[in-house]
């Protein structure tokens, strides 16, 4: 299996017997929340959906899996979301099978989904790969597989001699996780996670260097940094996690 990267998403496609296109955290309907926070912009849902549809057309997947946070507002559904969500789902269904690994922002979305579309919150294995939002402990059935996760909004900062060359660009983190804290079951192969950057284009993001060991999620806490590898959104291999160049302004 070799993943295919779509930098305009960012999105990643994984193909074994079937082709699964995964995106994370599109946060449709975020503008209503931005509005409350003093940032007044028009809904960008249509543009975001258009971007997604172009990737679906290009990659022609059997499934689109959204790794959680399809919608934005918690704990209720806003007027904007009520108005936009049916149309968004309809457009996607026309082109491909749709699955949602629900995230912490997806409350109240059940009514809009068809029965098969909603995966368990603790994740599901499709064609040998685990798909999961990433905000809780994954289901045991995912252990020993590659788990594709959202939730963390990873970004990469690259530094050169002068200072910063690239700040806050979306990136992927691939690493083994230590499942000992969750289970006594031993798996044949190690459990690995691929943290997928947010599809939502205004996401602030979390520096990948800060994710392993952080308390944002059980996944982040369980990551074994020495196994980590970092990629840019187009699949460019940056470096092993342990060799990422630190911010020159920070402590040595």
């Amino acid at each position, binding site marked *: 299996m070799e993943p295919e990267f779509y930098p305009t998403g960012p999105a990643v496609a994984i193909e074994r017997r079937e082709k699964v296109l995964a995106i994370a955290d599109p946060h449709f309907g975020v503008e209503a929340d*931005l*509005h409350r*926070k*003093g*940032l*007044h*912009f*028009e809904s960008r849902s249509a543009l975001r959906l258009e971007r997604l549809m172009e990737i679906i057309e290009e990659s022609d997947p059997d499934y689109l899996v959204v790794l959680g946070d399809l919608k934005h507002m918690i704990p209720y559904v806003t007027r904007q979301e009520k108005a936009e969500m049916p149309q968004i789902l309809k457009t996607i269904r026309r082109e491909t099978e749709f699955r949602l690994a629900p995230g912490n922002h997806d409350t109240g979305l059940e009514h809009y989904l068809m029965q098969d579309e909603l995966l368990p919150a603790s994740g599901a294995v499709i064609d040998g790969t685990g798909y999961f939002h990433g905000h809780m402990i994954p289901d045991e059935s995912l252990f020993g597989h590659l788990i594709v996760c959202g939730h963390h909004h990873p970004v990469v900062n690259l530094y050169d001699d*002068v200072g910063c060359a690239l*700040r*806050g660009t979306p990136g992927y983190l691939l690493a083994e996780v230590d499942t000992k804290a969750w289970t006594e079951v031993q798996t044949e192969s190690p459990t690995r996670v691929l943290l997928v950057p947010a599809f939502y*284009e*205004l*996401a*602030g*993001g979390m520096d990948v260097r800060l994710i392993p060991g952080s308390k944002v999620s059980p996944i982040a806490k369980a990551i074994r940094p020495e196994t980590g590898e970092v990629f840019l959104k187009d699949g460019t291999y940056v470096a092993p996690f342990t060799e990422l160049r630190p911010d020159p*302004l*920070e*402590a*040595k």
Partner: protein
Amino acid sequence: MNAVEELRNTLHPKLQAVLEKRGFDDFSEIQLRAIPELIKGGNAILIAPTGSGKTESALLPVFHNMLSKAHPKGFTALYITPLRSLNRDMMNRLEWWGKELGIKISVRHGDTTQNDRRKQATNPPDLLITTPESIQAMFMGKVLRKHLAGVRYVIVDEIHELAASKRGCQLSVALERIVELAGDFQRIGISATVGNPELVGKFLCGKRPCQVVAVPVAKTLDLSVRFAGEGFGEQVKLIEKCIDSHTSSLVFTNTRSVAEAIGNALVSREDIDVHHGSLSREVRVDAEDRFRNGQTRGMICTSSMELGIDIGQIDHVVQFNSPREVARLMQRTGRAGHRIGAASKGMILATGFDDILESMVVVRLATENRPENVRPHINPADVIANQISALAVERGEISIENIEKIFERCYCFENAGELIRDVIAQMEKHYLIRTEDGMVITKARARKYLSLNLSMIADEKKCVIFDVISRKPVGTLDESFVISWISSGAVFVARGQVWRVLELEENKVMVEPAKNAKGELPSWEGEQIPVPFTVAMEVGALRRTQDFASYRSDERSVTFAQKTLDEMKKNRSITATDKLIVLEDADEGVVVNLCAGHKVNEAIGRVLSILISARYGSAVGIETNAYRFYLRLPKHLAAPDVEEVFHTLEPEHVEGILQLALKKTSLYKWRLVQAAKKFGAIDADADYEKISMNRLLELFDGTIVEREAFRELFFSNMDVEGAKEIVRRLKNHEMETRTSRLSVIGAQGLFSERDMVTPPGEDQAIIESVKHRIAEQDVVLACMHCRKWKSRTKTGRVAEQPVCPVCGARLIAVLKPYEEPMFLALKKKTLTTEEKEAEKRMMKNANMVLSSGMDAVIALSGRGVGPDSAARILATFAKGDNFYREILKAERRFVQTHQYWG
């Protein structure tokens, strides 16, 4: 009957009586000329030296008409000034007149109490003294709007200031909004001398007729240039001499820090005060009073004294360093000698080659009555957005056609055309307003937006400058200054001292005092007065002709300038002129000598730096002043490389390259956010957490908001047209380039001390503050032998060789208070790795105290100084102050490598 009596007889009898009571038996020239015209009701711009009775020449005819005609209820006249302090000053001056004439006068601005505001609403004064922003607020109230409908006369004071700013553009729309309520009214502008008074007239009145009544300041000016000497001590003595030889003098400086430094040097004299914008209002008012009453004979001040605050008789104006702008010199020296017919005596004290030549040029242009033109903002889109939402809130709904008509009447917007509809479309995207059938309709949040956006003055946060050496705040900086100038390692001037930035935190700039500063330093709070293109070019011409005889200056100035030019000749250096650009190789880059003023040099410097860095793939640093810019380059690049890039430039590419270069800068982003706020896209208190600001700002790509940010940037920070002009002259060989080694003139920009005064003994002051801090440092003495004794004390109280009172050992560690728990933990039998490490460190610490005594105690008390760095300090064998300097070095290393403060 002479002209004076004739004029007096035409005035309202009540006014005549009051004039007599006041002992007003003569009219000044401006009064004689302006009053009859204004009584007729026409619009006018009045220009005359400050204090020559300009205010009365505007107010007497207004009073006359107010007394002679009946007026509807409401504010009959508005007197608008740009500053609250001017409002207060004006109120004090007019109170008596109002009482005598039976005209009710009142002030309304930000400081006005709720109680007074209520009184003004229920019982409106006949004459209201106010600011542009307060007028904006008044439109929001129903009752006050009704009072505005009574306006018959509007006087705008210091209109040249307003005409050059967005505040003024906003005011010009506000005046048209008053016309909508009250119909046309008489407009009177009071201005300082400017090169284009007709334009100021248009700014005030739009297409309506407006005459200019001007009494030239120039013919009454008696100006000269003197060389002030090279040392600060000598310069201060000369200032003192100037003050002593006159009854009352104003000494203007270009920056607050220089004013402070001079004030400090003269602090022992009781008859001199300092006056600048960073002092509290009480201090300033007190200084003004003392000067007016003759208690002081000298006032050291900055542009804070330029505007017309009345401080009584001034005999002599001294300008320390070149005033840079002709209008500024005329405005400042125009304050002296107001008795009719008396000349205004002013003297520039110049301090170096650039400064002397520039002063000569500025004086000549001033005596020829050639001040700079006022440059108004044309079509600032954020002002349009602001005023459209104001109109929408005021009326609930208004037709786009009507909006266009209102803007069309303002000079700044008369050609706005399609722009207005573009702005409306953009505002709609941010839900500030909505449109329907050609109407703009207000939305719920528009009112809140408006109350937070009454002013076009950018809402700048203040950043605290924090000195890590004394661990005390030093002062504050404007956010825009921090964004455009400050980065780690940058050097700037504040409080008359030079500082180096160690680190930037949100709202906090960590600094240490710097000693060796290179280049002309940016200084505190936007005080940089740019040298205009015209002045810099004439300085270039003067360098070429060396015709010093045609300029007014003392012999020492000429001798000094000549000496510099002779040295250039002796060294076979080439002097840059108005026709010659000289590129010189310096240690770390290339100095480009170009006599084009700050804003043009900034533009060309930025263009060259981005072209060089694109071509050679390396970062290029840039420092700019009026006569040269310095490009910091990698070693392999030299003057001919820069020259070649310079010659490849095409005039039409300049603007595009600059936009590209600036887009990534934080200065541009700051301007963009400011504009976005005015369009209602971003609230003043927006929460940016979890948002990528950079990507959010990308949403403005290609919008009118982005265009406005660039327009403003090019208007305020760099001169694109001037830069194009230079490139054009280079293309058609009106200008040439040459390359050379670094010359004395080229080096001046890098190493001169222009506008930078370092108070004597600065280094000493730092050492003293460190000594004091260390003596007061809390420490814990801990016996590493018996481990049973510890005692908290201050470094200053520790004995030369501390001894444990329990076991008598001299193995005492000097610990920081936060290390105390760790020491207690060492009593355990088994230790963790971490504790073992700590034990080792403390043993080393104690051994050092045992062998080096007090020196070790002091070194170990330094911030972040552990036994290892203390050992390094002791190994230098430095004594006395040098010992403390070593501690400072160690602390600085610590500060730069650790982020530990909150």
